[in-house]
């Protein structure tokens, strides 16, 4: 470990002569779900680096690293000499960029933009020119995923979430009520598959699949999914 100073910042170096981080994994080590890959290579998982990043960024600093297989890894933690106060937490803690990005996602599956989409999306039906907000429901057994999606959708001002369900059975009840116009649907649910819900939905309902399993994509678009969001290796799909 070493500490040095430049005119504006301090640099803390943590260097090892270890096994290095495989090139293929370097892009994702700060990913909060990187741990999900532990089962694949238990000895090599670098744990908790997303937390490191979060801690350092709170200080207005940054973390980067260089690594070479079997030579070692060096992390550089840069901290400003004077703490620049970050913008006060936004109301509800919602980062501004996430809204912008989510809008981009929506545009990508907008019918007007669909001609660029090439394959898969052709049969999708998103009632894009809806005057009011779309009524949506979220079906996912992970409360965290539901909460994140709800936040994003609230921010988008395009969808109002009228219900959440953690199981196919709960989702069926929701679908029977004044029908949702858009359903954010997980595939692996405790009591069945998200696909089981499709026959229960009204014909003009849009379905956005939210799943960690890529192999469902083709089937989803066969079912005229409006979009397909992939969760990164959440343990319980």
């Amino acid at each position: 470990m070493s500490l040095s100073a430049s005119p504006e910042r301090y640099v803390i170096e943590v260097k090892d002569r270890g096994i290095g981080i495989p090139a293929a994994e370097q892009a994702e080590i700060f990913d909060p779900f990187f741990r999900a890959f532990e089962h694949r290579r238990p000895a090599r998982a670098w744990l908790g680096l997303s937390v490191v990043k979060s801690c350092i960024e709170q200080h207005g600093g940054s973390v980067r690293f260089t690594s070479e297989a079997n030579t070692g890894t060096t992390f550089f933690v840069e901290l400003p000499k004077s703490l620049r106060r970050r913008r006060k937490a936004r109301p509800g803690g919602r980062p501004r960029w996430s809204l912008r990005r989510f809008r981009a996602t929506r545009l990508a599956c907008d019918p007007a933009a669909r001609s660029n989409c090439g394959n898969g999306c052709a049969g999708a039906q998103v009632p894009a020119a809806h005057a009011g907000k779309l009524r949506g429901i979220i079906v996912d057994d992970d409360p965290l995923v539901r909460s994140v999606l709800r936040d994003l959708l609230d921010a988008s001002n395009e969808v109002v979430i009228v219900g959440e369900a953690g199981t196919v059975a709960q989702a069926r009840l929701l679908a029977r009520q004044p029908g949702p116009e858009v359903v954010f649907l997980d595939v692996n649910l405790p009591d069945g598959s998200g696909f089981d819900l499709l026959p229960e939905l009204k014909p003009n309902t849009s379905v956005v699949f939210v799943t960690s399993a890529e192999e469902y994509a083709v089937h989803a678009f066969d079912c005229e999914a409006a979009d397909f969001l992939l969760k990164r290796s959440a343990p319980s799909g």
Partner: protein
Amino acid sequence: MQRAIVRMQAIISETLFLARSRMQRLPFDPGPIDLREFCSQMVADHEENPRLKFQCAAGRFPATGDALRLRQALENLLSNALKYSEGRWCEPERQP
């Protein structure tokens, strides 16, 4: 479609990460810290690992930070470095 999936993968994982940070409501309580003292204390706390060394120019390194959170971050980096260089030597180098 593959490209769209990759892009959405990134969006979802980032938002989940932010949500986790937010749900944990990690407090941030900054105060004055001398980074030199701070780092050398951390290295001293790892006396069972003589391979770990600390290198720093003389003088003071005054900063403002949350000691708890900084320690959390640096401890993580140190323990990873020690864990993954098991059986090898671990030595600091000068900042270029």
